[in-house]
């Protein structure tokens, strides 16, 4: 029998919610601990931040000079690096500071900003090192994490999951909240994976899984404008959890300028 795969979970700037995809998986977590060697996962106990591993899950965005160095080390020590969650794949909600002068904010907020060592931006892991697999979502769920681990155990490439939330919404036979209620649903431009939770609860998707493939942000923005939403409100739909994902960043930027995208 081959040696067990070695697994690490690293945390950067984040809310810890994606790590809970592990800690909330119940009996599967014990099974996982049986199948692989969890060598580093500070929140769960094992500590070996500098160990070399076969698969490293990285939660959080890169937002300090130390983070920049540490992520390079993690990359060097990991055969397969998985960026997990909106912070790691797109910089997270905290990347909203990238749009303004982040350093000024810190100065405005802290009486002694010199104590705070933070970069002016919060960026995705892929902006710093090569990423082998991305799990989008704020937060990712247990299914995504288990599939990633299972894929490594089988030794196969990650499956591509970039369809839109709408398709999953319809498979669940949820009534479209955009069409039936005029809600500003982001499902038509948002990546699948959550299980279309929001429309299932009869509310608009707010794009926490980031952009889907081939998204037509322009057409959706125009539709929201027809429904009576202001340019600023439409801009905020894009500039939220995944504001630094390029597609949303561009769309949000245009609407923020009041540009209706018709030019």
């Amino acid at each position, binding site marked *: 029998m081959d040696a067990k795969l070695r697994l690490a979970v690293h945390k950067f700037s984040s809310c810890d919610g994606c790590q809970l995809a592990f800690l909330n998986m119940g009996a599967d977590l014990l099974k996982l601990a049986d199948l692989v060697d969890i060598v580093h996962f500070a929140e769960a106990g094992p500590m070996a931040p500098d160990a070399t591993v076969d698969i490293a899950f990285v939660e959080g965005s890169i937002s300090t000079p130390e983070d920049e160095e540490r992520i390079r080390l993690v990359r060097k020590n990991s055969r397969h690096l998985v960026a997990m969650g909106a912070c790691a794949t797109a910089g997270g909600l905290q990347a909203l500071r990238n749009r303004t002068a982040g350093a000024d904010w810190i100065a405005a907020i802290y009486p002694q900003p010199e104590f705070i060592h933070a970069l002016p931006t919060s960026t995705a892991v892929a902006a710093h090192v090569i990423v082998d697999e991305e799990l989008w979502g704020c937060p990712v769920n247990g299914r995504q994490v288990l599939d990633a681990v*299972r894929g490594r155990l*089988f*030794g*196969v*490439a*990650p*499956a591509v999951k970039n369809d839109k939330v709408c398709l999953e919404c319809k498979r669940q036979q949820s009534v479209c909240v955009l069409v039936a209620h005029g809600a500003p649903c982001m499902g038509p431009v948002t990546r699948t994976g959550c299980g279309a939770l929001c429309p299932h609860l009869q509310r608009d998707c707010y794009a926490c899984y980031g952009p889907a493939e081939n998204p037509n942000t322009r057409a959706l923005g125009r539709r929201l404008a027809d429904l009576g939403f202001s340019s600023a409100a439409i801009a905020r739909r894009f500039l939220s959890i995944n504001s630094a994902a390029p597609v949303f960043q561009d769309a949000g930027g245009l609407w923020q300028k009041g540009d209706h995208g018709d030019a």
Partner: protein
Amino acid sequence: MSEPHILREAIIRERIQESPTIFTLRLAFTDPEQRARYSFQPGQFNMVALYGVGQSPISIVSDPKDEHLLDHTIRGLGRVSLGLSRLTPGERVGLRGPYGRGWPLVAAQGRNIVLVTGGLGCAPAVSVIRYILRRRDRFGHLTILQGVKHSDDLIWRQQYERWSKLPDVHVGLAADVSAPGWFGQVGPVTVLFDRAPITPGSLVMMCGPEMMMRAVVTELLRRGIDENDIWLSMERNMHCAVGLCGHCQIGPHFVCRDGPVFSYPELKALLGERGF
């Protein structure tokens, strides 16, 4: 009711590395009854399943007479095919098939046959070559023209050499880019046409990249081949292989059910049309 999706277990009897990325799996159903029941026509394909990962349509390259062994020559490209490339003899896969309409072997009887293939497009054609060579008296002259992007991509080099020495067989090899020592011609596969006995009345079978096939068809028509005598093997994304899932359509055709081998007139309108 039969369940068209149900896989059968097959064992890898042998694994042959054909080129750095291409390999052949020699498979046999483990259930003797299934083995006995199974028969196929050249040009048909199987769905080969990598346990827990997925299934891919792969042509059968063996001859139907090699009853107990089903050869599949695969290029390691994506999730399933790269995963398959790591399997070793003795390991198991899932298999279902055979599917689709194979080469027009009845129409081909007594005719001169021209096979034009490009890249790994040669896989579905190999089965028919073997078929013809084993039933030599039923067919006329056989011309085999194979083009590759780079001369290093050529697989089955010895086979081509062996075939080229047979009576009534002409083999031509071309590479867009060649390494030193290349014994074939340089250029697209159509550069082989001048030396090849391509005569009106021949039946042409081809497979390979669609742009290549389109160029070849134009050349064939120019040389007086009847369009009804041109047959092409097509590839599309496929999940069910039985005409249900909708992925493999080219216009009104389901490649899995109506093909993968089509006559040129069936495809004429859409061949090379981007998006179909």
